[in-house]
C-alpha cells in the first residue's frame, strides 16, 4: 500500500511529462514536415549550381 502511494503519483507525473514533451514537439513544428528529414541524410552536399535551369514555369 505504501509502495502504491509513491508509484501511482509517479505514473501520473510521467504521463504529464510525456504530454508536455509531445506538445513541445508539435508546437516546434516537429510534425510539420515528415518528408524531408528522411531524404536529407542520403544527399551529399553539392555546391550550389549557377545555371538557372529551374525557373518556375
Amino acid at each position, binding site marked *: 500500500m505504501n509502495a502504491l502511494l509513491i508509484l501511482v503519483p509517479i505514473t501520473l507525473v510521467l504521463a504529464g511529462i510525456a504530454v508536455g514533451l*509531445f*506538445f513541445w514537439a*508539435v508546437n516546434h513544428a516537429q510534425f510539420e514536415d515528415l518528408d*524531408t528529414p528522411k*531524404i*536529407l541524410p542520403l544527399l551529399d552536399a*553539392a555546391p550550389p549550381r549557377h545555371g538557372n*535551369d529551374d525557373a518556375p514555369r
Partner: protein
Amino acid sequence: MSAPVELWTRPALLDQVLRSRRDGRVEVVLRVAALAQPRRVLQLEQVLHALPGVASIALCIAARRVRVVFDAERLPLTQLLAACARAGCVAQPLQHDASGAAPGIALNASLKRLAVAGIFAMQAMMFALVLYLGAVNPLDPTTAHLFRWLGLVSAIPVVGYAAWPFYREALAGMRARRPGIDVPVALAIACIFAASVANALRGSGEIYFDSISMFVFVLLLGRHLELRAQARHRADGDAATDALPLLAQRRHADGTLETVAAVELVPGERVHVPEGDAAPCDGVLASERARVDASRWSGESRAVGHARGDRIAAGSVAVDGPLDLRVERTLATSSVAALERMTAAAQRARGLVGDDDAPAARRFVWRVLALAVATCAFWLWRDPARAFDATVAVLVVACPCAFGLAAPAVLTRSLALLSRRGVLVTRAAAVRALARVDRALFDKTGTLTEPALQPDRVETFRGVARETALRWAVALARESSHPVAQAIARVPADGVPLAHGVEIVAGGGVRGVVDGRPMRLGHAGFAGTDCDDAALWLADAQGPLARLPLAERVRADASACIKALQAVGVACALVSGDAPTRVRTVAAALGIAGWHARQAPADKLAHVRAGQAVGQVVLVVGDGGNDAAALAAADVSATPGGAVELARAHADLLLPAGLAGLPLARALAERAMQVLAQNRRWSLAWNLGAVPFAAAGLVPPWLAAIGMSASSLAVVLNSLRIRAARAPHAPPMALHERTT
C-alpha cells in the same frame, strides 16, 4: 516570372504575402519550383538556416512550398529571396490568404488531443484494471476508493480537453438545427462522466472512466486519420499553385516602365505584359496585335490572335511577344475574380447539403435517449435504488462508438486505396456522392483530349535528318512538364542526348544546349519564326531546324473511362467551350451522344444545376479553368492531368494517373458505401441488442468496456475488406516532376 527581388519592399505587396505572428515574427510561404529536385532541398535548407533572423523553416516537398518564420527587423524579405535565388532556388512569395495555413493548424490541434486522449486513456485503463481484478481478489475498501479517484483524475484531461471538438461540433449542430453524430457522442460523454463522478464521490456504484476515455481516444483516432489523409492529398494538389501575378509593369506617358503591385493599378493606365507572363488585369489591347493563350479561362485549345482594341482577360498569357494593355478593370473586379466568386458561391451552396450521417445519427440519438428514459422510469417504479446505475449502463452500452467510427474507418481505407491507384481525394465526403453519381459532364480540352505530335509530318530544314531533329526535340521537351512538351517527350527515339543549361520560359518554350549547340523548342514566336498555331518549332542560333506539327488527340484512357461509366449507368455528356466541329469529332470518337459546344462558364454551371434540379447526382470532370464554377457546383468534381491542372481545379478527385482512375474510383466508392452500411447495421445491432441486458442491470463495467472495444474493432476490420477492383497495370504516380 521575372519579378525583381527589390520590389518586395513595397508595403502594399508585403501586406499580401507576410503574415504577422503573435511572437512578433512574420511568416511567409514561398513557392519554390526547384524543390522537385531532392538535391536542392538540402541546399535550400542550409542556406536558409545560415541567414540571420530565420526562426524556423518547414518544407513541403509535395506542395513545393517553404514556410519561413523570420524576424522582419533583422532580415528583410528581399534578402531572403536573394539568398534563395543564389542557392539556385528561385522563390516566389504566395499570398498569405491563399497559402492555406488552416489544415496544418487543425492537424496539429488534433494530434495534441489524440496524444492526451491516448496517454490518459491508458492511465485510466490501468487503474480500472486494478478494480476489475478486485472482483476476483477483493481489495480493501481504502485501496478501491483510491483507485476510483485515480480513474477520475486520469479521465479529466480526456473529457475536459481531448473531447472538446465533440462538444463544439455538437453545439454548432444544435444551433444550426442539424444535429449530427457529435450530439449523441457529446451527450454520452457528458452523461457517463457526470454519473461516474457522482458515483466516485459517493463511493458506491459503477464508474466508467476507462470506457469513456477509450471511447474518446478511438473516435479521435478515426477523425485524425481522416484529417491527415485529406491534408496530404490537398498538399499534392497544391503542388503548382500559380496565382494571378502579384506584380505588374506600368508604362508611363514617356514610355518608361515601372514595376508596381497589381493591386495598385487603376483603370485607364497602361501596363506592359512581357512575353510568357500573365495579364495582371482585364484590359483593352493597346499594342498593334498580340497572341494570348487564354486556355485557362476560355477553354479555347489554341492561342488566339488579337488586334488593337480587343478585350483581354486577366490571367491570359502573352505568347509570341510582349503586349501592352490599357487597364479596364482591376484585379479585384476582373473577370477572373468574378469567376472565383462564382466558384466560391457554388462551393458554399454545396456545403449545406451532403452529410448523410445527420438523419441516421438523429434517429439514433432519439432511440438511445428514449431507451435511457424508459429504463430510468422502469427502475424508479420497480426499485429506485438501482435506477441511476441502470440508466448509466444503458448509456454506456448504447454509446455510438462503433457507429461514430464506421464512416471514418471506411473513408480512411477508401482514400488510402484510391491514392495507391492514382486517385487523390481532397474532400472525403465526395466518396459518398461518387457512389450515387448518375450523370457525368466532361470538359474537352485538357480533359478528354491532349496535344500529340504527328511524327511523320515533321518537316526539317537546312539538311537535318528527321531522326536527329526528333532526338534534339525530345532532349529539350523532356525537361518540361508542360502537356505539349510531354507529348513530344513521349515520341519514341533512340540515343537522346542530354540537354544542358536548360531554361523553361513560361508561355514560350524550352531553351538549352544539346549536342553542344544552343537550341530553342517552343511556339513559333519563341523559336524565331512567323506565327504558326498548329506546330512547335525547333531552332538554333542560325534559324529554324524543324517544324513539329501538333494535333489534338483523344486521350488513350478516355474511351475506356467513358465506356466503363456508361456501363454502370452513368449518363455521360460533353460540355466544352471549344468550336462545334472539334467538339462533335471528339464526342463521336468516344460514343458520347450529348454534346454542347461554345459553352461559357455560366452555361456549364447551368447544365449542372439542371441535372441537380431533376434529382441527378452530377459528376463534372474538367481542368478547372472556365469550368471552375461547374466543378464547384457539382456533387463530385474530378480533374485529370498534370500538376498545374490539378492545382487550379480544386476538385474533389485529382487524377494524376489519368482518367482510368475514374471508373475505378466509382466502383470503389460503391463498395465503400456497402461496407459503410454494413458497419452501421452491425454497430446499431450491437448497441440496441446489448441495451436490454444493460437495462436489466446485467452488464458490469468491464463487460461494457470489452463490448465497446470489440464492436469498434469489428467495424475497423470490416472496413479493411474494401479492396480496389483489379488494378489495370497500376499506373505510377506521375504527379511529381521528373528529376534529371
